[in-house]
């Protein structure tokens, strides 16, 4: 008979000698696994929510500019320089990039919004209303009125600005902006609606108008834009998508450079928070399994103590200490594999439930703000591959680690003493 598997077989047999104890120990590990995986999933869910609310309001997750646009954000630093670009072509190319779901062109300007009596400084964002709704929530929910229509001299302003100016939908306001020819662009616009984001600074200073209207105000031709904003499927893929898009633009024969700017750059604090959260995940998973190590080691120690006479016998028959250690460690490892299988079995439905039917705690807590992003208190778990894998590795290491001390004790048994002690 093949001897190679003898210690594995022994380990296996020993495991089932006290089934209840094995079951309980494996359960501890399995639930540790469940706890880790669920926690990582919920954290990822929270991060995703944070990133989404932090980026899909105004910025999008990926922006494309001319390389000299940042940090000055000069109105002259348009894509393609003075000659401008085929806007539709770049937007189409962006949207067709694998992993990008939507793209929208934009023009920015600074100026004044005035009723005559009251004047406030504003940041003007010129957008294509039809495409913008696919990228951000900016135009989606005016609290009054509606979003501006393409081709109309209409403007959507924030609650704070509307209050200062004391205007509502239908009111006429004067927009004044520095124009690209050095003159003072000014014209009358109709307030189409009022938005409210909850961010006071934004609601007081942002004003959104159809892209062509803003270009006219700033004396800019139609083919000069400052930005293409894009929404991506997987937020953490945004930096890589930006790079591949820049390559695609060059490969497509477009003769101007583009500089992608993912949210991890313009919302660096969110990205930092995400990586911090990753580290915290690791620590918490570590703590869960360190606690498990002691529990499992304790029961295995009991198991080896019960069998000390057997160990004494095999030692007396000439078994090497190494083989004794192996059999105990194998026992721990097999226990870990069983626990892992059980853990995966119970984790899958829990994660599925948390992902698809997340408990909504809004009634209890209301929205809260993290790193400048409004987050809904919804316990939604995000699937990820690395979380469960890390947890699985941690579990197996735990089961082996917890077998080491009992194995050491088993080797230390003196055959004569153990056998004499009846």
């Amino acid at each position, binding site marked *: 008979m093949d001897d190679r598997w003898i210690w594995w077989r022994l380990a296996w047999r020993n495991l089932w000698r006290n089934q209840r104890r094995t079951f309980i120990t494996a359960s501890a590990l399995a639930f540790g696994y469940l706890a880790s995986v669920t926690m990582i999933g919920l954290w990822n869910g929270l991060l995703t929510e944070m990133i989404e609310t932090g980026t899909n309001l105004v910025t999008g997750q990926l922006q494309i500019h001319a390389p000299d646009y940042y940090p000055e954000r000069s*109105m002259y630093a348009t894509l393609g320089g003075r000659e401008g670009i085929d806007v539709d072509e770049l937007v189409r190319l962006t949207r067709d990039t694998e992993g990008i779901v939507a793209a929208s062109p934009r023009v920015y300007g*600074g100026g004044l919004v005035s009723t005559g009596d009251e004047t406030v*400084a504003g940041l003007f964002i010129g957008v294509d209303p039809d495409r913008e709704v696919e990228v951000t929530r900016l135009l989606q929910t005016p609290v009054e009125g509606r979003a501006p229509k393409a081709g109309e001299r209409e403007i959507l302003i924030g609650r704070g600005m509307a209050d200062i100016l004391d205007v509502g939908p239908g009111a006429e306001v004067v927009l004044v902006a520095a124009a690209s020819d050095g003159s003072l662009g000014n014209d009358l616009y109709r307030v189409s609606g009022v938005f409210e984001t909850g961010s006071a600074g934004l609601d007081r200073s942002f004003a959104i108008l159809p892209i062509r209207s803003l270009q006219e105000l700033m004396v800019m031709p139609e083919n000069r834009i400052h930005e293409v904003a894009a929404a991506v499927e997987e937020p953490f893929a945004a930096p890589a998508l930006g790079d591949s898009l820049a390559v695609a633009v060059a490969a497509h024969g477009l003769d101007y450079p583009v500089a992608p700017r993912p949210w991890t750059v313009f919302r660096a604090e969110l990205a930092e928070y995400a990586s911090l959260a990753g580290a915290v995940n690791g620590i918490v998973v570590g703590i869960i399994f360190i606690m498990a190590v002691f529990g499992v080691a304790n029961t295995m120690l009991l198991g080896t103590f019960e069998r000390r006479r057997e160990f004494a016998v095999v030692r007396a028959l000439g078994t090497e200490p190494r083989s004794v250690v192996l059999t105990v460690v194998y026992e721990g490892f097999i226990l870990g594999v069983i626990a892992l299988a059980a853990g995966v079995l119970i984790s899958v439905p829990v994660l599925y439930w948390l992902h698809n039917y997340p408990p909504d705690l809004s009634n209890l807590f209301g929205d809260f703000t993290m790193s400048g992003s409004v987050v809904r208190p919804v316990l939604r778990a995000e699937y990820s591959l690395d979380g469960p894998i890390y947890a699985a590795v941690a579990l197996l290491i735990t089961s082996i680690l917890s077998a080491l001390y009992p194995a050491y004790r088993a080797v230390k048994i003196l055959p004569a003493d153990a056998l004499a002690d009846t």
Partner: protein
Amino acid sequence: MVLHIRGAPVIPGPVRTPGELWDSRRHRIPGRFRARGGLVIPLALLGCLFSPLAAHAQSAREIIDRVDQLMRGESSIARITMDIQTENWDRSLTLSAWSLGTEHSLIRVESPQKEAGTATLRADQEVWNYLPRVDRTLKLPSSMMAGSWMGSHFTNDDLVKESRLVDDYGIEIEFDGTRDGVDVWEFLLVPLPEAPVVWGKIRYQVSKEGLLPTWTRYYDESDELIRTMTFSENRMMGSRLVPTVMTIRPADKPEESTVVRYHELEFDVDLDEDYFSLRNLRSGR
């Protein structure tokens, strides 16, 4: 009015409440050097000019105050051209300007045609702009005072500022001697605590002959040069010897400039406060 904003949303300006403006003048020195009134146009445009009467040596403070007030008649009318050069465009504006005392001034664009009639009014503590295209007057928020005026390198604040240098700055002579064969004083102006000013310090060169300014250098709070204003082509205008050309250059873009040239300048003309009304701002006449 214009903010020559390059992308940046809002340029925060010095916030001056009317009260501060008023208080800033509480240090007025009495006596013969005291201003008789008149902010002629862009006081800061003119920077400071000097009365030919007083030529003997005075304290730094007195010299600066005299230079600062050279152009102050009770009232004035001027015709000006402003040539603006930037890396992206060049343009030239013809302006008319009226002033009365330190409280009232009106500047109107005469050409180019597209912007003719655009006007800026300072009356009491408020600044208003008139935009003929939309036929509206708008009051300039204080946050916009640091914004560019009509795309030039002057700020709105430069154009309407009426407080005097001696009220806001401590002044000392930094250099007294010859530069390029010309006898000059160079002054260092450091803001007094709580003075409502934007500059960290100002350096000022005055030619001893004729007591006319030659240049002014403006620094920010970290002592970095922001812009230089040079004065040239001294001529008799309105019976005073004044520099008729002022050139402003931003330090970070030396190829850019705004040149202001006085073509006509008259002092003590017949104007009263009613002239500086919103109605007149709109009327274009």
